[in-house]
């Protein structure tokens, strides 16, 4: 409680986050403050601690030290499901879906959970017409409308990546954390996927991890660079492109490769 809070204008913020796995420090003194409505990219070499930071923010990991704030409220000890209810949603780098539910069922499930209907056992699902219509609309907005009656496991890989996003959107997030949304999608198709992300409402703040620099510079309004569990630098794409330390990290890598 004595730790100073972040700037009150940020929607999502961390202060001095620490996390170690044995001797490996995956997050060291990570402090970020993300203002509402911005499209943030989180970049850095493999093992820089990007996914760890998302896991800490969403509560899937507990920090060794430091605090996390959502909309100014301290959520450090709030369980993951409750953070989702407060407006912090995520997607997963590896598809984490419901193989034997249809896409429509999966998104309807997410909507019902948000609306608090999912513990009702005495009413039949079709009675929740709003939830079903909303789920269908979300799927439609991500070009999944025609295939929403198919089992998730039979959907094409790229469609499954979109379903990841659809599930997160169904929770009506204020902040959406996308862990490599285009992972495994053929390079040519990732702009289409990011186009869908760029088309999201400006009410949703987006933080995405991505390795393709063309995509990052095209879709992010600000960029955070992580290296070795630390935030190296944060700034606009122009600032990042011009930063000597960032060039060192990336060009240094390519030179050794």
């Amino acid at each position: 409680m004595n730790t100073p809070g972040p700037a009150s204008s940020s929607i999502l913020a961390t202060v001095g986050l620490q996390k170690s796995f044995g001797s490996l420090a995956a997050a060291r003194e990570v402090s970020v403050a993300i203002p509402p409505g911005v499209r943030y990219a989180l970049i850095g070499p493999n093992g820089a601690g990007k996914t760890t930071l998302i896991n800490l923010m969403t509560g899937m990991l507990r920090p060794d030290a430091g605090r996390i704030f959502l909309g100014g409220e301290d959520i450090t000890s709030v369980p993951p499901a409750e953070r989702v209810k407060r407006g912090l949603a995520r997607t997963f780098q590896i598809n984490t879906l419901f193989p034997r539910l249809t896409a429509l069922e999966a998104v309807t499930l997410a909507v019902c959970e948000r609306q608090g209907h999912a513990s009702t056992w005495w009413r039949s699902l079709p009675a929740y017409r709003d939830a079903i219509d909303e789920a269908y609309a979300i799927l439609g907005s991500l070009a999944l409308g025609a295939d929403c009656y198919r089992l998730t496991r039979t959907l094409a890989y790229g469609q499954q990546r979109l379903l990841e996003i659809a599930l997160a959107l169904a929770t009506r997030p204020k902040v959406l954390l996308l862990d490599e949304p285009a992972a495994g999608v053929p390079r040519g198709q990732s702009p289409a996927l990011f186009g869908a992300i760029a088309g999201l409402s400006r009410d949703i703040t987006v933080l995405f991890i991505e390795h393709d620099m063309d995509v990052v510079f095209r879709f992010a309004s600000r960029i955070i660079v992580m290296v070795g569990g630390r935030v190296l630098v944060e700034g606009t794409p122009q600032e990042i492109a011009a930063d000597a330390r960032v060039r060192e990290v990336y060009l240094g890598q390519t030179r050794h490769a």
Partner: protein
Amino acid sequence: MATVSLEAVGGAHGYLRAQTRWRRSEIAFWLATLLPFLLFPAYLQLASQIAITALFAVSLDLILGYAGIVSLGHAAFFGLGAYTAGLFSKFGWGEPLSGLILASALAGVVGYAASFVIAHFRHLALIMITLGMGLLLQEAANSASELTGGVDGLQGVRMRPLFELFPFDLWGRTAYTYSLAALFLTFLVARRLTHSPFGLSLRGIRENAVRMPALGAPSRTRVRQVYTIAAAMAGMAGALLAQTTLTVSLEVLSFQRSADVLVILILGGAGRLYGGVLGAIIYMVARDQFSGINPQYWYFWIGLLLIAVVLFLPNGILAGLDRAAARFRRRSP
């Protein structure tokens, strides 16, 4: 091919409603459960036991087939219900309906208590824990022989007529009516539950328990709820057995009974409610027939049947029937 007709019946909403609608085959099935009264009046006791086993299998389906909670100790709740109903009548309260409700409620309470442990585990760990709980209860009943009769079984169970009108007759007419009515009403509840948002959420837990918190879902609470409901249903099945056979043996709590109901459910097809019912019919009739031919080795044939089903109908007999029906419909439009 499907999309066009789906749009025609009202899009996403119509599609989901079509899944919950009563099918003709369902109605035909429930009408057929009345046939034993006419066709096999000598087998009504067996029919009653089949209905009881079906109810037990449906209760396991709710946790295993829908929520993905494996159990090798589900007989614990069956036995708890059987002993509760048996003891209740032995000590003077022979009215069946109140005994049934009380036994079911008690099994539900114990299930609720156990669910706090169950909700923290999955897969192999769950098998061990449910197995352990089953063994604990069986040995407890064995050692409390003054109350339960131990290995000799509980004697002196007497039932008053159902609604004070229909005595439990030797032929099992009342017994089958009673068990079938209990199965049907409970099935209606289970059917509604599986078609509800809660049921969808259970399937979500089965399909991906890790993703559920990321949707804001309190999955452990859901697991506790369904486990409690399933325990109460299993307790009801046990109570029905005690009340219709007027005896309770330690076998109601045995590992064998837990294993049998699992076999029945897998045979019929888990995760589709009717699978447990169909499995119970096939298993019990097969047991009756095989043990008539050869009373000592009839498990040999059950073993063979099980292997054949898993090899040729990996999702159970019901899934196989569904596939066959779909193929038939495509061939004759």
